[in-house]
């Protein structure tokens, strides 16, 4: 396991402990059914079905998420691990003007399509800024990416520019990313069996002089991986990948929606579409069914295309969480509470990734009032409340007015739902 994989595993373990200690979290075991097809020169291994079962689990909290998934062939004569993924996202900072996330992935791939084993990891630091005007929220961010393939330190400079708006309780985002290829890398015997992007696209000597341009599908490795026992040198000339994707996520009534669609392009002229649609239906505040279809985005170095379905349940401790899948933009508050002290009331909303939280209720004459950021993911308003029943709604970052999760709710005269609190 490379140093990057070790780092990822350690960071994931730390996040797991942190998330487990959080007040609100969602645990989502699921089973995926995927079908892989060869799209390149390399054919599937004889006797191995392209259909795989992918058990996995997703743990989410306001601070981040961890996704673990592995894949085994349905008809394998013996247990065979096709591949496994460990992905984590940790929100490092979140303020009114900026937010930063660390996205780390570790992947083991013994693809039935490639007949080659590999381990890779990547660490991305995403920093963006947000703002809101007239109910629209927008943002943009860039990130860098450092990968390690089978112990080879491969720096893949990547830039992602994303923007999002939030309306009607849904978050719409668009993302453009570009990756340039590494200039050169050196592989050894143990790691030479895996061929990453450079081998599939172009070759360049370690001296930096261009040798031979490889034509063909830029998404697939070369058909003949090196087998020499001597260290091999390989590299790439300036080929590039680009991806463009649109995503929508959020809540509509008791349904959670997370869908995206995009296209990957390589400078060789190859293009592949990808996308997913995952729906979550909350049956009760702590239990939901989830399911959907996924066509995975193209992965440089992989010869196959993977498409499949997903079935699972989601379990939430405490009030229902809004869906914020591994790569989804922030969308909602996680919990709320009210404390009464000396005739005053402090309404506190926990919104892990919000930059601006407002409240509107009968005690504000239904005008928006901004909550104070009191630290971490906590936003609060202290006000005097007359004894009796009061109703209010909250909104994050100029989004839709919604009841505060974790407090009693009722339907108002306008067929909306509002939070209800009783002042003593």
């Amino acid at each position: 396991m490379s140093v990057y994989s070790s780092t990822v595993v350690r960071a994931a373990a730390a996040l797991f402990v942190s998330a487990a200690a959080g007040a609100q979290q969602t645990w989502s075991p699921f089973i995926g059914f995927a079908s892989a097809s060869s799209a390149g020169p390399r054919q599937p291994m004889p006797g191995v079905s392209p259909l795989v079962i992918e058990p996995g689990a997703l743990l989410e909290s306001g601070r981040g998420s961890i996704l673990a998934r592995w894949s085994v062939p349905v008809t394998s004569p013996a247990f065979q691990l096709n591949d496994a993924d460990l992905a984590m996202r940790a929100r490092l900072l979140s303020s009114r003007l900026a937010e930063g996330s660390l996205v780390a992935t570790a992947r083991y791939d013994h693809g039935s399509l490639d007949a080659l084993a590999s381990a890779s990891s990547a660490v991305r630091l995403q920093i963006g800024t947000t703002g809101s005007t007239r109910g629209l929220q927008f943002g943009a961010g860039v990130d860098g990416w450092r990968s390690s393939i089978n112990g080879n330190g491969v720096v893949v400079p990547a830039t992602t520019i994303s923007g999002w708006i939030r309306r009607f309780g849904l978050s719409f985002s668009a993302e453009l990313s570009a990756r340039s290829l590494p200039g050169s890398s050196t592989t050894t015997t143990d790691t030479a069996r895996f061929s990453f992007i450079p081998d599939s696209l172009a070759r360049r000597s370690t001296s930096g002089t261009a040798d031979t341009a490889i034509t063909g599908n830029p998404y697939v490795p070369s058909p003949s991986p090196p087998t020499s026992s001597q260290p091999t040198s390989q590299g790439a000339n300036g080929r590039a990948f680009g991806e463009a994707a649109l995503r929508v996520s959020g809540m509509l009534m008791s349904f959670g929606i997370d869908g995206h669609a995009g296209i990957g392009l390589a400078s060789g002229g190859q293009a592949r579409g990808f996308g997913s649609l995952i729906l979550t239906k909350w049956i009760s505040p702590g239990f939901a069914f989830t399911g959907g279809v996924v066509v995975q985005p193209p992965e440089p170095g992989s010869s196959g295309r993977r498409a499949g379905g997903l079935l699972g349940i989601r379990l939430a401790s405490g009030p229902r969480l809004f869906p914020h899948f591994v790569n989804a933009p922030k969308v909602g508050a996680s919990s709320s509470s009210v404390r009464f002290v000396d005739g005053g009331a402090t309404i506190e909303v926990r919104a892990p990734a919000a930059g601006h939280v407002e409240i509107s209720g009968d005690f504000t004459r239904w005008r928006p009032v901004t909550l104070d950021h009191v630290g971490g993911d906590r936003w609060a308003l202290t006000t005097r409340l007359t004894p009796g029943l009061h109703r209010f709604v909250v909104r994050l970052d100029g989004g839709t007015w919604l009841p505060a999760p974790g407090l009693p709710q009722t339907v108002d005269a306008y067929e909306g739902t509002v939070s209800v609190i009783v002042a003593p």
Partner: protein
Amino acid sequence: MKTTTIVLACLLTASAARAQDARLRGVLDAETLAKVTRLTDSARVESLPVEPLVGVALEGAQRHASGARITKAVQDYLGALRGARAALGSDASVAEIASGAGVLLSGVNGDVLRQLRTASPNRSLTVPLVVLADLIARGVPKDTAARAIAAAARANARDDDYSALRRFVEQDIIAGASPAAAAMLRVRSITGVPPADEPVP
């Protein structure tokens, strides 16, 4: 002296009316404002609380509801205020009427209010009615919540008892109990009588 007092009262009333108009004027269109003002004026003439009606109109504006929708919501609330006073009696306080209207709008039958008044003729029903509305908002079925509050009223529960009932039910629900079971269990600890044995109007 008496004349001066009346004049001052009229001035204060007119001032309050102007203030309410000003609050609504900025957020309602002219036609809706005129209709809502007529409804609030009716409430004022009938000595019904006006403030909840203004709140309903402001809430509708905040939710970008249509003028017709806002007018209907205010009209419905005015109807609930009238129904609450009819059920609670002409001597009911403004706070009782407002709380009773909230209960009626949550779907509880007016006979429940009459039953509570009969059980507690000389006590304010503001707190019991607020707790009743709160229990319903927390997911306690309407009949069960009405039974629980009626049982507490028959047992001469004090305001503190109702507040404790609300607090304990809240804790039980958070701990995982079903809202109905929590209400039935907790009211029994106050009255000693299972609320299921209480008649429901």
